[in-house]
């Protein structure tokens, strides 16, 4: 069904996903140890945004919603969207369904950077509690330079990028393991905790940084949507269509790493969502990147938000690390789509 040259079905999907996301965000903010109704949450947010609106709400729920829950919910949304975006972009430029910022070493490099800060207490960038963040970001960006540098020696193609990425991933994982071996019990706990991923450290000031970076990467990669579509048909086809494949690959790779690094340096390693969200979206809206990119962001945001909310409430007050829950939700969802969709979605 087309209207004004646009696929109405796909647009309807986006609108439904966006409405679902907003509803889930309010629902998630109402969940926690201190029980609140959807109405309470709505009133608290309204009164914070519009100071002239006055509601009779006790102080404690206000602080809990505004300082603890809302930043965390928003972080889950932006991180989910950003990681899904990075996964979609990397799968597009490498034409491989198994690629994500995790398979090519970005997150293991970030993990190494964080471990250096936790275990050795030294860092390239930042001081105090920003040491871990600065280090994780620095090494994540370094990993992409390494991957691209190694790949260039043999000519930048999808295969060389993937192989170089895998080498870099194993290298940084080995370094992290070595550091864990040298760590004290407390430091080891810190490292393992970081590697599990955690959204509990969400703060308003960090959120704005991540959001700006996400917006930048999203807008710039959307510009390449057509080029990604051309790349899907093969390098030769893309070149004949006038795509500067080398430039597209390099810039997209850097953007995908940048957004991944920005997210994981604040949250620790959250895997899987960047691999599975693009696939789920591809099965639902197809392989046209004009829809796939924003669609993946919505699916990633929903996935991570639901996973984090379940993780922090299912056996409260104890929290289950978000990485574990993401897999528990993502795997059945993915399997269902894989087994029920008739069309070969990956083309």
């Amino acid at each position, binding site marked *: 069904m087309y209207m004004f040259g646009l696929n109405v079905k796909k647009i309807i999907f986006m609108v439904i996903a966006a409405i679902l996301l907003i509803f889930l965000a309010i629902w998630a903010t109402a969940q*926690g*140890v*201190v029980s609140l109704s959807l109405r309470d949450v709505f009133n608290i947010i309204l009164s914070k945004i519009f100071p002239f609106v006055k509601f009779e709400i006790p102080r*404690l729920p206000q*602080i*809990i919603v505004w*300082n*603890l829950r809302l930043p965390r919910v928003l972080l889950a949304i932006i991180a989910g969207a950003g990681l899904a975006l990075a996964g979609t972009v990397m799968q597009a430029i490498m034409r491989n369904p198994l690629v994500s910022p995790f398979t090519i070493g970005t997150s293991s490099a970030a993990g190494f950077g964080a471990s250096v800060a936790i275990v050795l207490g030294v860092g390239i960038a930042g001081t105090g*509690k920003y040491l871990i963040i600065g280090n994780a970001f620095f090494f994540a960006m370094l990993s992409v330079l390494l991957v691209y540098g190694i790949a260039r020696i043999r000519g930048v193609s999808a295969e060389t990028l993937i192989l170089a990425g895998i080498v870099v991933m194993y290298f940084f994982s080995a370094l992290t393991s070595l550091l864990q*071996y*040298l*760590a*004290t*019990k*407390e430091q080891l*706990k*810190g490292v393992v*905790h970081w590697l599990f991923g*955690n959204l*509990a*450290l969400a*703060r308003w000031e960090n959120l704005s940084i991540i959001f700006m970076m996400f917006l930048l990467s999203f807008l710039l990669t959307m510009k390449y949507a057509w080029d990604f579509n051309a790349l899907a048909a093969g390098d030769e086809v893309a070149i004949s269509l006038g795509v500067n494949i080398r430039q597209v690959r390099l810039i997209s790779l850097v953007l995908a790493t940048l957004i991944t690094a920005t997210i994981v340096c604040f949250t620790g390693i959250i895997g899987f969502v960047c691999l599975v969200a693009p696939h789920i979206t591809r099965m639902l809206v197809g392989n046209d990147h004009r829809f796939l990119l924003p669609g993946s962001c919505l699916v990633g945001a929903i996935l991570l938000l639901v996973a984090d909310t379940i993780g*922090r409430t299912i056996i*409260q*007050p*104890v*929290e289950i690390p978000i990485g574990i829950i993401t897999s528990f939700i993502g795997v059945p969802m993915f399997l269902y789509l894989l087994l029920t969709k008739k069309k070969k979605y990956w083309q």
Partner: protein
Amino acid sequence: MNKKILLGLIIFSLYTGISYGANRIVVLNADAIKILVALGATDRIVGMADKKPKLLPSLLKDVPEVGSLGSPNIEAIVKLEPDVVIAYDSWPSQDFLEDKLLPFGIKVLRIACYKINSFTEDIKILGNLVGKEKRAQEFIEFFQKYLGLILERTKGIKKKLKVYLEYQDYSTVSGGSGGDELLKIVGLENIASEFKIPFPKVSPEWVLAKNPDVIIKVPRLGVKEVNEDIFKELINRPGWKELKAVKEGKVHLVSYYEIWAGPKAIIGALYLAKWCYPDAFLDINPEAIHKELAKKFYHEDLKGVYVWP
């Protein structure tokens, strides 16, 4: 009171605004719990982290849990309306705790409570916090009495015995750790003290080559008691029949949770001293002292097996 401690307390209370006689306390530090219980302040504990019922005094069974030590649930803490939250000296990190509790106006006290060399100060601080200074003084005196006795009697020992100390299988401790400190106090030499890594995993061959005089294993299996099975498994390791410690019967198990970590470590130290230097400690019965401590400060009648053999 020691001037340094007094000054520290004054600065601490000015800095944090914690008044003496805190009534509602959330304790994330499991070793501080043991001290608070000994001070008779169990009823002040309104929340705690990582509840492991098998390791807890029965009085604490109904205390609500507030998440894990690594990621405490701030909402659960806030809901309990505590005067103060007690954490470890450097764990969990400040951004997980102080930064999150700040908007609610809840103070955090950071304290070790797991190092034998700082027990005196730690007990004093907690005693002041809950307004049980007299009880704290009694606890400190009990602890100091036996610490002094051990130091006094092991001072003159010329040939220090060499000890291999093991936690998990083939995982030992190097200099500066709590276990190493304990060995030093008893006048023993840790064969792994030179390692740079805090908890080195050593090779079976290395233990055979070092041929220690004494082997101490401190199992951490989630239960307080130790048993013969662990002991048999230990001495039947390949090649261990030839070890000096095994031949001379100087292989022992010690309960980590009961008498090794935390304020009751002095009991672990007494056992070590008696096993290693029996002539100097003929008149000392660690089991009786352990029972006395349990009765006097924890109101418990000890029945379990906390060392083997």
